[in-house]
C-alpha cells in the first residue's frame, strides 16, 4: 500500500469541494503523484488518463479498496458454480460455496502462480491446478499436493499463505454482489447510499420479486481510459452531436414508413435511436444528481414528457396487471414511474432499472477498457418483456450498435488526443455555478445541463486516491 504523506480530507469535505467553495490547496502526495494537482476543481489533469503510474495507483487505492460489483446471485446459483471476473486488473472467481454463501477467490495457484480456471464459468467440486495438480477446496483452502513427502517439514498444507487469496469483504444487496479487497471501509449500504433505490426498483419490477441475468451478454473493448465510460454516461449535451447520424437516420426512417409491421422489434430500435435527438431545451429539462462516493444519475425524463414511462400495448398491459396483482396499483405506478436513468455506481457499475440492464466497467490498462452489458429476466413478467430487454441491450451495447459505436469512437479520440496533444487539464466546469447542494447529504442536484456527475466522480477519485487506511 502506498504511504500517504499528508492526510486527505474527510469524504464529506471532499464531496463539498466540487469546485463551489475555495478550499485552500494543499499538496497530497501519494507515491510521488500529486493527487491534489491532478484532481483540480476545473478538471482532471490529462495524466489521470494517460499515465501508467496513475493507473497503477488507481488499481491499488480505488479498485482494491472500494466496493466493486462482481456479479449477480443468479449467475452462480448452485454450490460449485463459479464465474470468472475482475476487480480492477485482478482476475478473480466468484464462487458459490457448499453452504450457499459466496466467496471471491484470486484465480491463481499458490504454488507457481498459474491461472487456475481458464473457463469463464462452470461448476467444480474443487479447483485443480493444471500444472502440478495442487487441489483447492471451493473456499480456497489447499487440500491436496502431489508428492507432499518431498517437502521439508516447514511446509504445512494448512498454512493460510498456501490457500487461494480471497476478498476479505463480500456483501450483496438484493442479489447484486459487491466485493472489497480491503479489510476496512464503509459498509456496502452506506457506500451505495441513494443508489440502492435503483437496485430496489429493478428487483421490484419483477412481479414475483425475482430477477436473473439471462439472454447472453456483450463484451466491448475500447482503447481508452476506464473513467471515460462513466464520465460520458450522464452527459446530456453529447447525444445530439455524437449520435447525430443515428438520430437523423431514425427520424428519416420514421417519416418513411408508418404502420408497417416490423418483424424484429416493431420500432423499438428506431425509437431508441431517435430519443438521442436532444435539443438544447431538452438538456435543460433533464435533471442531474451527483452523489457522495462518486455515484450519479439522470432524472426528469418522464416529468418533462421527454420519454413515456411505458409503451401502451398488450404486452405492457399484461405486465402491469401482473405487477398490480403483486404490489397493488399505487405501488405499481411508483415502480413503473421511477424517473431515474443511468444509475452510475462508482467506479464500475451502471444500473438501468427501466430497461432491466446493467453495464460493468473493467479497466485493462491505462488506455484499454472492456465494458460488459447484461440484461435480466423478470420472474412473473411476460416473455415479450424479456425480449424487449434483449433488444434494448443489443441496440445499446452491442459492438455493432449504431449508437454505442460512436461513443466508443469518441472515447478513443479523447484518449488519442490526450496522449498526443498539448492539453494539460480537461475541463468539467459546465453547470458549476448552478448546482445545488442537498443539505446534509453530500449530494448535489442540477436542473441544467451540468457536468456535475464528472465533478462527483472527480471528488470520489480524489478522496480514495488520497485517503489513508
Amino acid at each position, binding site marked *: 500500500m502506498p504511504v500517504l504523506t499528508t492526510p486527505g480530507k474527510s469524504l464529506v469535505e471532499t464531496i463539498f469541494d466540487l469546485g463551489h467553495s475555495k478550499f485552500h490547496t494543499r499538496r497530497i502526495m501519494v507515491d510521488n503523484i500529486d493527487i491534489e494537482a491532478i484532481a483540480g476543481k476545473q478538471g482532471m489533469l490529462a495524466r489521470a488518463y494517460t499515465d501508467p503510474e496513475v493507473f497503477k495507483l488507481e488499481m491499488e487505492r480505488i479498485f482494491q479498496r472500494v466496493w466493486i460489483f462482481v456479479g449477480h446471485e443468479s449467475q452462480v446459483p448452485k454450490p460449485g458454480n463459479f464465474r470468472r471476473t475482475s476487480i480492477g486488473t485482478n482476475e478473480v472467481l466468484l464462487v458459490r460455496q457448499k453452504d450457499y454463501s459466496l466467496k471471491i477467490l484470486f484465480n491463481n495457484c499458490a504454488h507457481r502462480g498459474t491461472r487456475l480456471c481458464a473457463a*469463464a464459468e462452470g461448476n467444480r467440486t474443487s479447483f485443480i491446478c493444471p500444472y502440478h495438480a495442487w487441489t483447492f477446496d471451493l473456499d480456497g483452502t489447499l487440500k491436496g499436493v502431489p508428492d507432499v513427502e518431498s517437502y521439508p517439514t516447514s511446509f504445512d498444507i494448512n498454512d493460510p499463505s498456501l490457500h487461494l487469496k480471497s476478498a476479505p469483504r463480500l456483501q450483496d444487496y438484493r442479489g447484486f454482489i459487491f466485493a472489497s479487497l480491503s479489510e476496512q471501509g464503509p459498509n456496502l449500504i452506506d457506500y451505495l447510499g441513494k443508489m440502492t433505490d435503483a437496485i430496489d426498483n429493478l428487483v421490484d419490477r419483477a412481479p414475483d420479486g425475482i430477477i436473473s441475468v439471462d*439472454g*447472453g*451478454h*456483450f*463484451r*466491448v*473493448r*475500447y*482503447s481508452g481510459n476506464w473513467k471515460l465510460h462513466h464520465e460520458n454516461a450522464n452527459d446530456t449535451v453529447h447525444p445530439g*452531436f*455524437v449520435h*447525430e*447520424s*443515428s438520430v*437523423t*437516420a*431514425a427520424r*428519416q*426512417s420514421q417519416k418513411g*414508413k408508418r404502420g*408497417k409491421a*416490423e*418483424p*424484429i*422489434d416493431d420500432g423499438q*430500435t*428506431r425509437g431508441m*435511436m431517435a430519443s438521442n435527438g436532444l435539443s438544447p431545451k431538452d438538456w435543460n429539462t433533464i435533471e442531474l444528481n451527483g452523489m457522495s462516493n462518486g455515484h450519479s444519475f439522470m432524472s426528469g425524463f418522464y416529468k418533462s414528457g421527454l420519454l413515456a414511462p411505458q409503451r401502451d400495448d398488450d404486452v405492457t398491459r399484461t405486465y402491469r396487471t401482473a405487477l398490480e396483482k403483486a404490489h397493488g396499483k399505487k405501488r405499481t405506478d411508483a415502480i413503473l414511474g421511477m424517473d431515474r436513468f443511468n444509475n452510475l455506481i462508482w467506479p464500475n457499475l451502471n444500473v438501468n432499472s427501466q430497461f432491466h440492464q446493467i453495464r460493468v466497467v473493467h479497466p485493462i490498462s491505462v488506455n484499454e477498457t*472492456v465494458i460488459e452489458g447484461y*440484461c435480466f429476466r423478470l420472474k412473473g413478467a411476460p*416473455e415479450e418483456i*424479456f*425480449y424487449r430487454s*434483449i433488444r434494448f*441491450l*443489443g441496440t445499446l451495447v*452491442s*459492438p*455493432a450498435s*449504431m449508437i*454505442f*459505436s*460512436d461513443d*466508443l*469512437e*469518441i472515447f478513443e*479520440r479523447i484518449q488519442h488526443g490526450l496522449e498526443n496533444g498539448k492539453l494539460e487539464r480537461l475541463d468539467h466546469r459546465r453547470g458549476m455555478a448552478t448546482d445545488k447542494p442537498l443539505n446534509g447529504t453530500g449530494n448535489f442536484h442540477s436542473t441544467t445541463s451540468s457536468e456535475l456527475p464528472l465533478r462527483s466522480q472527480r471528488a470520489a477519485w480524489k478522496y480514495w486516491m488520497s485517503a489513508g487506511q
Partner: protein
Amino acid sequence: MNAEVLLQNNVQAFLIHEADLLDRGLFGEWVDLFDEDGIYWVPSSPFQEDMLGQVSIILEDKELLKLRATRLAHPNAHAFSPRPSTVHLVANISTTLEGEDVIATSNLIMTVFRNDKENQLSGRVTHKLRKVLNGFRIQLKRVDLIQAGGAFSAITVPP
C-alpha cells in the same frame, strides 16, 4: 454444365458480388440484396439457437438494415469517419437445395483497416437464398464469428 455446377457457380458469383458491395461501401445496394422479409443475423455466442431469447451482435430486418445504411451514409457517423478499408474474403463455399431455396455455407475472413490499425473478424456464414429472376435474394444471412463471446472493438462494416 450440369445443374449442380451451375448453381455452385451462380451462388459463388452472388457471394462475391455481395462481398464487393460491402467492401466498396455500397450499403444501400447491399441491403437491396435482401428479400423483403429477409433477416441479417450475427449471433453473440457460438452455437446460438435462439434468435429472440438471446442477445445478438446484429439481428435486423430489411427496414433496420436500411436504417443502418442510412446512418453510415451520414457525414457525422463518427465511428465510420474516416471510412474503414475492408476486404471480405469468401471461401469454402458449398451449396445445397432446401425446397425451392438454396442454402449456401461459406467461410469468411474480413480484414478491417482504419486509423493505422488492423482488425480481423472471421466466421462461418450461412446464406438462405431465394431464387428470383436473374439471381437470388437473401432470406437469411447468418454470420457465426469465431470471436463470438470475446471482447470486440466497435464494428461498423457488416461482416
